[in-house]
């Protein structure tokens, strides 16, 4: 069984959005408008039920040499975001119908013929990826191109990426490649190049890894994502105490009531 992954290297991303287009075309995801925030050239905003790849546009103050820009222009950085396909996936654990499964490739897949749209996965995702389509009623997110991987092809976004910013392959190979790439970038003077895979959190690593420059928070990548199952023990303990209090209190109240 092969375990595959994405490695998205933002230092190679040119912000062309080929991945977004390829994803929509292959998966037949509907058009959802081009809405400008007024803050950047990002007209997609965030991942959602109709956005399974999202190119982030990070613009900051002029920084000579950053991205090869002229010193007087704003510095640019782009990063193509995607479902993280967590090792411990909150959505998968939360799904009450078993619609969300782990595929043989290690990805997390929502089976559209089973999902009944309870929307509990939406608030179980620490990366805010999966979303309910209110018109359709079901929850949608990146499928990791399960259909393409089944027949031995690479996911649509990785295939369409013109700079190989989106790399696809065996997860172990990509982890090694990522370390080599980060070292290479450090040697080139890009000391802020960082590898992100949420490996040291309760999420336990992701099948979509990233190389970004600077603080991952700039790219809306949370420093400490938690899979919500970590809260279960506290929650059910409290529920048991609540039940014991209710039972004991009610017994006591009726036994102490002389009138009966």
């Amino acid at each position, binding site marked *: 069984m092969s375990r595959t992954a994405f490695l998205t290297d933002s230092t190679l991303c040119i912000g062309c959005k080929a991945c977004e287009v390829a994803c929509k075309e292959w998966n037949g995801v509907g058009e959802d408008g081009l809405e400008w*925030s007024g*803050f*950047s050239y990002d007209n997609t905003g*965030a991942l959602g039920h109709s956005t399974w790849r999202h190119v982030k546009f*990070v*613009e900051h103050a002029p920084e000579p040499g950053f991205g090869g820009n002229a010193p007087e222009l704003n510095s640019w950085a782009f990063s193509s975001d995607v479902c993280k396909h967590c090792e411990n996936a*909150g959505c998968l*654990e*939360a*799904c*009450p*119908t*078993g*619609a969300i499964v782990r595929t043989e490739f290690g990805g997390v897949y929502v089976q559209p013929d*089973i*999902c*009944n749209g*309870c*929307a*509990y996965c*939406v*608030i179980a*995702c*620490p*990366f*805010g990826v999966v979303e*309910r*389509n*209110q018109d*359709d*009623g*079901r929850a949608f997110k990146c499928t990791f191109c399960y259909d393409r991987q089944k027949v031995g092809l690479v996911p649509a976004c990785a295939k369409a990426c013109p700079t190989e910013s989106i790399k696809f392959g065996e997860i172990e190979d990509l982890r090694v490649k990522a370390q080599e790439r980060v070292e290479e970038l450090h040697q080139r003077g890009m000391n802020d190049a960082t590898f992100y895979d949420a490996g040291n959190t309760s999420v336990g690593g992701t099948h979509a890894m990233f190389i970004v420059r600077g*603080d991952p*928070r*700039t790219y*809306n990548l*949370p*420093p400490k994502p938690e899979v*919500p199952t970590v*809260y*279960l023990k*506290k*929650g*059910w303990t*409290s*529920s048991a*105490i*609540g*039940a014991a*209090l*209710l039972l004991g*209190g*009610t*017994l006591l*109240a*009726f036994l*102490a*009531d002389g*009138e*009966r």
Partner: protein
Amino acid sequence: MRRTPHDGRPSTRTPDSTSEQRLAEIRREAEQRGEIKAAGVRPSGAPFPMASPETGYYGIPLLKEPAWTWEVPLYFFVGGAAGAAAVVGAIADYTGADRNLVRDARWIAAAGAVISPALLIADLGRPERFLNMMRVFKPQSPMSVGVWTLLGFSAAATATAFAGFMRERYGPSLPLRVMENAGQAASLAFGLPFSNYTGVLIGATTIPVWNRNVAELPIHFGASGLSAAVGLLEMMGHRRSRALQMLGLGAAIFESWEGWRIESRQQPGLDPLKRGTSGWIVRAGGALSGPIPAALRALSMIRGNERSRALRRWAGLSAVAGSLITRIAWVHAGHVSARDWREPLEISDPLYTEKGVSRRRDPHQ
């Protein structure tokens, strides 16, 4: 023609009393304070969101808001009251309390057992696929555990009420007695978790204001459910039962403590419980669940019988309204919390200083 910054304005301006007053004001301020505090020319909407370690990704929230509709907080209320009513009914029966009280408690439980699944199904994006919930049982999913608890509770509570009704109407028989007793035991067993599991349901999520309170939410919701069940029974006429009075008082005291706990903790992630609209809904629910019914009950204990029962009706009404508003408040606070882009990125709110919370509004929100 060369464009100047004054494009769009007349090249000359006629001085009037307002303009001269303003100039005098600037002069006075400069003399007295040595500086001018004025916004100057500022583009509307500034300061603009940016992408940086201090401002996240343009302040776009990372987390998604709950997609649940209005049925869900109502379900939390109905389910909580029904679960607690089943427990009260069963214990009242076992301890030989008033038969009418037992019967009414069972009816509340049965009504909740019918309404709850309807609300839950109506909330689904694909209601016709509700049965898919029964494909699996997943202990790690509070939604799955809750659905199975609901199903067990619904079957047990409706069977108990039905058997009791048939017995009263057509006289006792063995099958009815078996159904009534087994149903009651099962509604007690399922009613206990059913009264409070919704606290785990929202607590074990990524929504900060919910998961920070996961250790208290189920007890809080259980107390809220009990106070609603007691309130409904009192509104149905059971205003003489001392047991109900004690239970109502206990729940109201617990809810008062819960309200105090929410108010007194200073943590940025708990803002939605204290500030803005959601904060006021939480306070309204807390007041109606805690101090108000507690005070009315205390008063009713020292008043004469007639006055006492009138006060208990009001205490019951307040508790029921408080329980409903409390559930709405927590769900609403969850929405506000999901929109807080700082929390999941662990970016501290500059409004929080060592001295406490500044009341200044956040330009990014």
